[in-house]
């Protein structure tokens, strides 16, 4: 066997190396007796290693060799520059989540399981890598499971907390159910085509075959569960509310983004002959996702539950890029993912740091937040404005491009419905802004100082929100990569 093929997987292998190093460090360095400097160095280790690995895989983007397309193991594994770019984006998001997690990890009750948090998170990330780079349905399925199962453990991380356990139970049960359906769909694919390689499938699909159409729906439902699209979204609110805030942040951005990207690539690459069918399906799913989530978001008081519905509706906007499967759609999807990531993580960073310092997670608790914590509420406002799509923040540009992509792909009605929903979403995002700035409160959340990790992460997010749109070369850069899909 030609082992050099493994070298094509350098993105994944470097991540595995990071996981192994962290595992060993956790085993041998983190005894009970630790001096202050060692513990400080250790808390920097995951972030530092991941940053190094990000730099490593990003370096491949800077000096592309050949056409950038690589294939290993007979097409089971595939990688293109735009896939690498998505992995880099996911990595950046994970780094921000790690920075967010630091103060939480330092709590005494978490001291004995710090290593697990990093390893589980990176394992899900590895699963997403494989999902993105898969060239075969089994590979895809394994990646999906690798991304799901450690996630359950993460959601149940504070295992003595009843809510956390409940959230994990709901997640794993729904995940199993959707995996079952997905596997059923894959078996239909294999049964009708006799192969599971993506490259070969496109030629064997035909829109007339009922079983294959069923497989298409089952595939979309399986991955729709990961992106939490309506009607596969019902677990989202309960899980987001119960999971530790850091994990919720991770769940709402990273795993969702990876799944949305994979949905795009597989629909375009594999289900190409059924393009009309999946356009119809996605059309309705998007309309329902955006609208239903907005309707629910209006009523929430728990801010994490609120963000869950916001995330469902944002997912609807994100997969707008899938419509028609154009190169422009791909560019705007990746761009939307990046912009959504910085804004959403910015909000979660502030929710998290507030929860860590005051224990409050209701929107009404944020009344008068501006009086006590003006800087945080200002940045929160920027991020919410970006999520709502108000110019000149990055969210406006990302929405603009994704609407334009859907419009050019021939779905003006869909774009119109999405636009109307943008107005509704503006309403509920502004509810939080109103709570922070306008509603008077005699006892607002006491002023607190956030730790320097959180500060760094918040600064990165704020910068991304402000500059992500105006610095147009980001979009242009993605566009050059996604040109050939």
């Amino acid at each position: 066997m030609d082992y050099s093929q493994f070298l094509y997987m350098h993105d994944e292998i470097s991540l595995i190396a990071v996981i192994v190093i962290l595992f060993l460090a956790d085993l041998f360095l983190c005894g009970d007796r630790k001096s202050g400097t060692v513990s400080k160095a250790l808390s920097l280790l995951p972030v530092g290693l991941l940053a190094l690995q990000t730099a490593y895989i990003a370096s491949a983007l800077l000096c592309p060799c050949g056409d950038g397309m690589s294939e290993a193991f007979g097409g089971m594994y595939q990688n293109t520059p735009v896939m690498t770019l998505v992995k880099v984006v996911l990595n950046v998001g994970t780094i921000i989540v790690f920075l967010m997690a630091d103060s939480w990890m330092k709590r005494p009750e978490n001291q004995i399981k710090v290593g697990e948090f990093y390893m589980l998170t990176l394992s899900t990330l590895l699963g997403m890598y494989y999902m993105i780079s898969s060239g075969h349905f089994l590979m895809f399925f394994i990646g999906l499971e690798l991304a799901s199962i450690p996630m359950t453990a993460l959601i149940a991380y504070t295992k003595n907390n009843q809510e956390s356990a409940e959230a994990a139970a709901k997640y794993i049960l729904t995940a199993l159910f959707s995996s079952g359906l997905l596997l059923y769909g894959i078996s239909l694919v294999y049964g009708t085509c006799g192969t599971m390689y993506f490259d070969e499938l496109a030629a064997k699909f035909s829109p007339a075959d009922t079983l294959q159409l069923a497989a298409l729906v089952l595939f979309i439902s399986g991955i729709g569960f990961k992106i939490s699209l309506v009607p596969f979204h019902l677990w989202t609110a309960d899980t987001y509310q119960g999971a530790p805030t850091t994990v919720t942040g991770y769940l709402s951005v990273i795993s969702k983004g990876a799944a949305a990207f994979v949905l795009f690539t597989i629909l375009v690459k594999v289900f190409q002959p059924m393009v009309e069918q999946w356009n119809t399906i996605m059309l309705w799913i998007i309309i329902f996702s955006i609208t239903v989530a907005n309707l629910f978001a209006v009523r929430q008081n728990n801010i994490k539950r609120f963000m869950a519905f916001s995330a469902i509706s944002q997912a609807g906007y994100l997969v707008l890029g899938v419509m028609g499967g154009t190169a422009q759609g791909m560019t705007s999807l990746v761009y939307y993912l990046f912009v959504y990531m910085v804004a959403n993580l910015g909000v979660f960073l502030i929710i998290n740091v507030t929860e860590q310092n005051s224990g409050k997670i209701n929107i009404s608790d944020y009344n008068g937040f501006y009086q006590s914590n003006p800087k945080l509420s200002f940045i929160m406002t920027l991020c919410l404005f970006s999520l709502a799509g108000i110019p000149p923040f990055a969210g406006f540009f990302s929405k603009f491009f994704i609407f334009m992509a859907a419009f050019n792909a021939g779905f003006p009605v869909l774009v119109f419905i999405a636009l109307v929903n943008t107005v509704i979403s503006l309403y509920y995002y502004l509810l939080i802004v109103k709570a922070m700035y306008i509603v008077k409160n005699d006892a607002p959340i006491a002023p607190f100082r956030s730790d320097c990790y959180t500060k760094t992460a918040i600064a990165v997010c704020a910068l991304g929100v402000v500059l992500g749109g105006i610095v147009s070369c980001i979009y242009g850069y993605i566009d050059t990569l996604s040109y050939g899909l």
Partner: protein
Amino acid sequence: MEYTILILLLPFLSFLFLGLAGKWLSHRASGMIGTAVLAVITILSYCTAYEYFTADRCADGAYATLVPYNMTWLPLGNLNFDLGILLDPISVMMLIVITTVSFMVHIYSFGYMKGERGFQRYYAFLSLFTMSMLGLVVATNIFQMYLFWELVGVSSYLLIGFYYTLPAAVAASKKAFIVTRFADLGFLIGILIFGYYTGSFSFDFVNNLQMADGTTPFIPCAIDKAVAAGGFIIPTALTLMFIGGAGKSAMFPLHIWLPDAMEGPTPVSALIHAATMVVAGVYQVARLFPLWVTYAQDWMPVIIWVGVFTAFYAASVACAQSDIKRVLAFSTISQIAFMMVALGVCTEITTGHEHEGSIGYMASMFHLFTHAMFKACLFLGAGCIIHAVHSNEMEAMGGLRKYLPVTHVTFLISCLAISGIPFFSGFSSKDEIITACMAYNPAVGYIMTAIAAMTAFYMFRLYYGIFWGTENRKLHEEHTPHEESIMTMPLVVLSIITVGVGVYTTLAGFGMFEGYSFGSLISADGHDYRIHFDTSVASLSTVIAICSILLATYIFKGETQPVADKMYAAAPRLHCWAYKRFYMDEVYQFITHRIIFAHVSRPIAWFDRHVIDGFFNFLAWGTHALSFNIRTLQSGRVQQYALVFLIGVLILILMIL
């Protein structure tokens, strides 16, 4: 010439730095930073100009149009928004004008604004303004121009309202912003029409047009298409854009904001409302000039007559004002109208001695240049006077020549320049404008000559009112007026430029030098154009200017002014009307309040409150009701979740089968 990008970046960085970190800086340090940055970009602009004008020309002898920097900011498929830098003779000239005046104002403000609250904020805004104005003149496309145009509007708003505790300043800044913004609506619609029909915002074809000699190989077919779609499209777009330009350049009837804008600090008036921002409209017309000449020749009388009327109106109002800054403001309006008229009377694009139709373009740009220098000097001089006597009114002044000798001399030089006396810069440029007008239509030429005479009259009325006449002893006993060297230094520099340019161009105009003159740098098509005075025009305007000055001397120089009093008594109504600016503000008040607010806004407001709000309230109510009713979907029971999941899958399968 990639370094030109620094000319835009440095003031922007200085704005950010002073705006964000200004709180922790001393007044002195922040002023030094702002001024140092300005010094650097002034030097860079001069280097650019030197390099540009000495570089190799195109094969046909015209100056090349360079785009040293360009990036696509928003890619929108076939229509892109670009940001870049375009260098051609007029943009390079504007770089010089803006950086020079801005640099002088930066130095001057050290003295004028000393000890003011918000000194750092002041310098931050000055940097922002300079950056926006420079971005406007080097724009490579109409959209970029519009972007910086609005930025200029914003920074002007911020600077006029600098004393935000004074209600008058706040009102003036709002007025300036709203009036120019209203005019900009026309600009925006014009841009959109233009972009929609031609598929491009770029100025490229404009400049290519300049080089095309008779044939039109460079004109993109898109323009032909727009022309074919109806001959009126390009003229309509251009006229709408002209409305925007008229707003910024304070053309009648959109001039009402400029006199009020004098509430801002005086150096700001010098920079923004005399030398740079207000000429943006003229610059815009000049930039789009090839389009005007080629496609909208029939519509150009609009520019001419708006200009002529504005020039006359502003000059007559200026004769009656008592606030020295307002006199200067109206004189600015009048002088800018001169530049507009000069562009309007230009009927062809090829230059040369035999083509008189194209003098206007050169004359307009030339007057822009000379006017910027001497008007900045006048405003800064007015600032010195106000600084010395703490009042804007002419009654508080009189006999100041003893106390403010440097201001006196420089003010006199600038007054002579604006009046059009030979050997001062205004003479050469104004003379070219009048020559161009005469060539177009002698009637326009004579009207402009008369307005030039009025200019000389009201400027010397101002001059005698300030520096001669009765001394206001009561005021001067409290504190003796004095001047500061940091404030007089810019005056000296600007008046040296005025005299130097004046002497050189006057001699060149009479044929003394065969070297460079303004016309060989800037002309309608980039070819050499040697200025030669038309003797009859030059002598007529000089004689008339001197007569007006003598008349003003006769009436206003003395300690008492019997003639002036008699004139006021003879026509009290006329004086009162002119003093009240012919009630233009009241007309606006009447139109906006009595007509628009009462008969248009109120019904619309009712409609908005009851029908539109009602619809949205209904939408909100419906959203809430719906969301209340579907809440059972989110029950918390996993088995139900799975059921919904499965039903969803089945419905989707049935849907596509």
